[in-house]
């Protein structure tokens, strides 16, 4: 079968990767001169994309067209006949749309007011010198999103800002301030946030549009802790909001699939457009981060490839379905929901409980009750923002706590400590921590959403187990099936590449350093009998030796690189001795 992938970004490449594993012929059409899309524009992700792309670059069944675009399409005998701008005509049975997102450039920009991708080039590690006056900088979030003209949340700006703080601190130690509305972090990022807070990064729950640029500084006026404050910064970084790609409108006219009101592809069933044999993935569905783009890319590639052994692979997928949370309907009339916790582990549930609380609050409000939601942090990325807007419109009262404010719950009276005096008498107070306690028995891998696992596998835990749904990360229901197909795709990818490190037993000294380095605990130390002779007769002694359990092994190669006596052999290291693996910054 022939498959056409429109868009050579990370999700398009990962869709192509799955389709190639199934033995299909893949054509990738990319508008720009080089593949990579938005991911390759981030300096620290460029290497990551390259390693990902290099895996499929030299396959014989792949064709790559850069600098061209789709002109027209005809359907003939169940196949699309697509014409490109460079005059080539491609026949394809299935089409995967992976056009990605487009950047929103803020209107107010100057020499010192830069957008986040421009700032990325400033602190790029390729530059020998960072600007000398990088002493006090500010990040302003939610620029060009979560407004009336574009209501969706970009869902990656907060995380990306966190990475940029890290990359900045690696080069220089400026004073950093972050102006935010909600800090929408996922998984492990909460620990990173905790770390940065302790190291002096200031987070201010306030936003500002009063920004003026001078020759040597930028003045920002903002309102925080009951006072108007003015500060000068050397650089101000405005985040780039992510908007739907305008190219989608043209493509929807050519292929005939429909878009939703925000300009993204309308999903009929997960990842399928309403035209048969056309699939969508990555940023053409909603604003999402790199890992989710890979995930949806895998899933779309899998759906387009039509797996025959789906039943066989199903057994490896480990699903915990989304929990339905029903509040016992009390007779009271005033409800208070509190979304906030100090425990970094409980913070993982922010995303799930934000949407659950919003939904419950809207239901209660429709019954004529008075509902307050007091939030420390409200995380409902992408389409969740629509739910949030609806709840606000219905009349649910949202009270946002500032950094210095805390909630005190005293029986039925809820009051806010800190700047403002506010007291609510509630019949029922629902706190997030109380709800998290109900989920204690479930097995949940909290770190899985945000951090790229080794070898770019979004759902893999080990070779026998692929986590999907609530187990992977508690989030919105629409992701459950996407993750499920991605897991099936990954099983197919993994089943064909059996590449595990091997221990050369005669060299192994049994020091155990590989055991300590292994992330998934796949290495055991066994004892074996050795004959020893030291100035005399042979003696039988026992010596430890490392053994690798292949069902648990991720194939990351960390053991091979840490082994002091080079007793572990790993195939990928062997074949690419000329290009040593780049010490890439994790995260």
């Amino acid at each position, binding site marked *: 079968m022939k498959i056409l992938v429109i868009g050579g970004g990370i999700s398009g490449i990962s869709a192509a990767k799955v389709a190639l594993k199934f033995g299909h012929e893949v054509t990738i059409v990319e508008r720009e001169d080089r593949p990579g899309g938005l991911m390759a524009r981030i300096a620290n992700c460029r290497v990551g994309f390259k390693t990902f792309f290099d895996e499929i670059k030299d396959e014989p069944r792949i064709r790559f067209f850069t600098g061209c675009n789709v002109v027209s399409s005809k359907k003939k005998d169940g196949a699309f006949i697509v014409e490109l701008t460079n005059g080539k005509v491609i026949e394809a049975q299935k089409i995967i749309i992976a056009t990605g997102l487009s950047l929103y450039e803020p209107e107010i920009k100057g020499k010192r007011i830069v957008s986040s991708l421009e700032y990325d080039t400033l602190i790029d590690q390729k530059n020998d010198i960072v600007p000398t006056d990088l002493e006090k900088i500010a990040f302003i979030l939610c620029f060009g999103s979560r407004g009336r003209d574009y209501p969706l949340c970009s869902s990656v700006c907060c995380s990306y800002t966190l990475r940029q703080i890290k990359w900045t601190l690696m080069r220089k130690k400026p004073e950093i301030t972050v102006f935010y*509305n909600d800090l929408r972090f996922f998984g492990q990022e909460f620990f990173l946030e905790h770390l940065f807070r302790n190291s002096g990064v200031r987070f201010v729950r*306030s*936003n*500002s*549009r009063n920004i003026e640029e001078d020759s040597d500084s930028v003045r920002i006026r*903002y309102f925080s802790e009951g006072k*108007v404050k003015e500060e000068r910064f050397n650089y101000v970084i405005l985040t780039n909001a992510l908007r739907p790609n305008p190219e989608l409108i043209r493509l929807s006219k050519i292929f005939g699939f429909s878009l939703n009101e925000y300009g993204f592809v309308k999903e009929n069933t997960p990842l399928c457009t309403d035209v048969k044999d056309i699939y969508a993935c990555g940023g053409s569905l909603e604003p999402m981060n790199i890992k989710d783009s890979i995930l949806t890319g895998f899933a779309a590639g899998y759906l387009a490839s039509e797996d025959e052994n789906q039943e066989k692979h199903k057994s490896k997928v480990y699903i915990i379905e989304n929990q339905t949370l029903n509040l016992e309907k009390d007779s009271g009339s005033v409800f208070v929901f509190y979304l906030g916790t100090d425990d970094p582990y409980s913070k993982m549930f922010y995303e799930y409980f934000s949407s659950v609380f919003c939904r419950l609050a809207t239901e209660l409000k429709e019954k004529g009750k008075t509902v307050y939601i007091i939030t420390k942090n409200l995380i409902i990325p992408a389409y969740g923002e629509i739910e949030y807007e609806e709840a*606000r419109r219905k009349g649910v*009262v949202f009270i*946002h706590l500032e950094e210095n404010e805390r909630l005190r719950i005293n029986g039925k009276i809820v009051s806010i400590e800190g700047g403002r005096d506010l007291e609510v008498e509630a019949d029922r107070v629902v706190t997030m921590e109380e709800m998290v306690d109900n989920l204690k028995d479930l097995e949940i891998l909290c770190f899985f959403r945000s951090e790229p696992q080794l070898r770019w596998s979004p759902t893999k835990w080990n070779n026998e187990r692929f986590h999907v749904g609530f187990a992977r990360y508690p989030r919105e229901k629409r992701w459950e099936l996407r993750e499920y197909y991605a897991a099936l795709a990954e099983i197919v990818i993994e089943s064909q590449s059996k590449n595990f490190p091997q221990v050369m037993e005669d060299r192994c000294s049994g020091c155990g350093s590989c055991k300590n380095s292994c992330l998934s605990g796949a290495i055991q130390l066994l004892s074996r009998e050795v004959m020893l002779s030291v100035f005399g007769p042979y003696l039988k002694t026992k010596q430890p030796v490392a053994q690798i359990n292949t069902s648990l092994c991720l194939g990351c190669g960390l053991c091979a690189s840490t082994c002091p006596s080079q007793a572990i052999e790993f195939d990928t290291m062997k074949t690419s001795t000329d290009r040593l693996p780049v010490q890439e910054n994790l995260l």
Partner: protein
Amino acid sequence: MQMIDTEKVFEYSGYKKEDFSVCLGCKICASVCTLNDIGENVNPQEILISIFLGKVLNTHPLVRLCTSCYRCTDSCPWSIRIPEVIRALKEISQKEESFGKAFRSSIKIFGRIYEPYVILKLSSVLLRKGYIKFFPKWIEYFSLHLPHFVRRD
């Protein structure tokens, strides 16, 4: 602090409640407010929140000082018209007068005082209080021709 029916505030502002309840709480309005240029410490969002909570802050400096410059609306991501709420608060805190009401609603609809509209709106009050009469003055002289017991005075 004075307790006023909060639904009334939205009614007076001329917009629906949900036009104001979409507030995200980002405090952009406070950062651009004109009053903060001249040394006040005001946050227009406080007024919205207090109304949603069922209280009306009449003593808030914004109610007194707001210049209705609409800078907050201009930079608000949801274009919330906070000056309209403040105007409604100002109106409610004053004693209600039917004359003022008619003049104000005339300005709201036509942008100026359109007298036919004002008189139509006020007709019942004017008639009741005797400012205008049903019949012209000369009709009263007709009564001179009527018998004495029918005449009023």
